[in-house]
């Protein structure tokens, strides 16, 4: 099933790129590029979904590797913003597969917002724990946003519902110096 979808998407992406290479019109090339970008996004989503499907319950170390994998891939594409992942956990913590997927999507969304809308130079993702909770903060030094007119509105709503699904709390602070998203979930 997803093998076929994956191969077909790959074929579409490759075919578009090959057409683009033969084409001299700038306008057409821009259009081709934007369609093939959607193709790449889709296949990347598909890869994450398959990762989640196959995922067993695990712990924070598995989530951190997956986030580092994302950082690694983004590093290949751009130098800025710089992405820093800091692990200040006192020990690893058990996470269900659903928790890992939701936390991964939250971090992915947080990075995406900072990259696309905030013009940030640096994004720092920190994992830390307290007696009772696991905390993740996503902090950038971008231009900040106000909630009402924000293009980030949808993204923030998504993050909120994902964290609430894990009995967690989402809070954020945003001003001219940047944005700080904080996610807190109870340790099991």
């Amino acid at each position, binding site marked *: 099933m997803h093998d076929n979808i994956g191969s077909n998407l790959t074929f579409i992406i490759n075919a578009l790129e090959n057409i683009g290479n033969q084409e001299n019109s700038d306008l057409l090339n821009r259009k081709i590029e934007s369609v093939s970008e959607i193709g790449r996004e889709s296949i990347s989503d598909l890869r994450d979904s398959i990762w989640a499907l196959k995922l067993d319950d695990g712990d924070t170390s598995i989530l951190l590797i997956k986030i580092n994998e994302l950082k690694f891939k983004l590093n290949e594409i751009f130098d800025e913003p710089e*992405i820093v992942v800091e692990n200040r956990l006192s020990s690893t913590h058990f996470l269900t597969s659903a928790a890992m997927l939701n936390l991964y999507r939250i971090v992915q969304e947080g990075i995406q917002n900072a990259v696309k809308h905030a013009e940030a130079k640096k994004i720092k993702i920190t994992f830390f724990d307290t007696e009772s909770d696991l905390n993740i903060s996503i902090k950038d030094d971008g231009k900040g946003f106000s909630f009402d007119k924000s293009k980030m509105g949808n993204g923030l709503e998504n993050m909120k519902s994902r964290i609430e699904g894990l009995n967690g709390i989402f809070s954020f602070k945003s001003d001219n110096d940047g944005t700080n998203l904080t996610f807190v979930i109870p340790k099991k």
Partner: protein
Amino acid sequence: MNNINIAIAEDNFRLARGISEKLSSYSETINICFHESNGNLLIEHLTKEPEIDLILMDIEMPELGGIDTTAQVRNLFPKIKIVMLTVFDDDDKILQSIQAGASGYLLKDISAQKLYESILMIMDGGAPMSPTVAFKTLKMIRATDLEIKNSAESKKVLTNRETEILEHICEGLNYKQIAEQLFIAPTTVRKHIANIYDKLHVRNKVQAIAKAQRERLI
């Protein structure tokens, strides 16, 4: 630089054609010599036309799949480099491919330029590795190190530097960043990774032989 002769093993004809087309803009340096749709046909063709430098290899193919084909080609034609091409980044299969002797893997939707650059890098002795694969490699090596320690002589498989580099890859650093952290040249990082790949490959062979002996297969 001499031209690089490439063969493609891929059972999906459309994807094979897509890959050839991608490389067609680099025909000054890259010759696509032939395409076969499974491992048996590939090996058959290689015996007739062995002047291949690099094989772009699909993992899932009928009759003889990419991982087994890699092991056989590495034995029969040790000079030929093999790069796995995959739609999904399935870590277990990628790790198995590396153990079978592949010099790395690339995703099939890779851009033409990146594909070209990766081929040059691999021909130059480099080997790409991702954090998940590095993480699994470390875990696997630590497990076998422990096994060996408990049985006979304890000789570490990886040097401290190699382990350190794998740990940095796990943290999501790329080769350039690792080089900066460790005050070494990026080419040195690449060389270390290539050595790690070789060790994984050798280790896999030694283990396979040991297993066969244990199970009285040979």
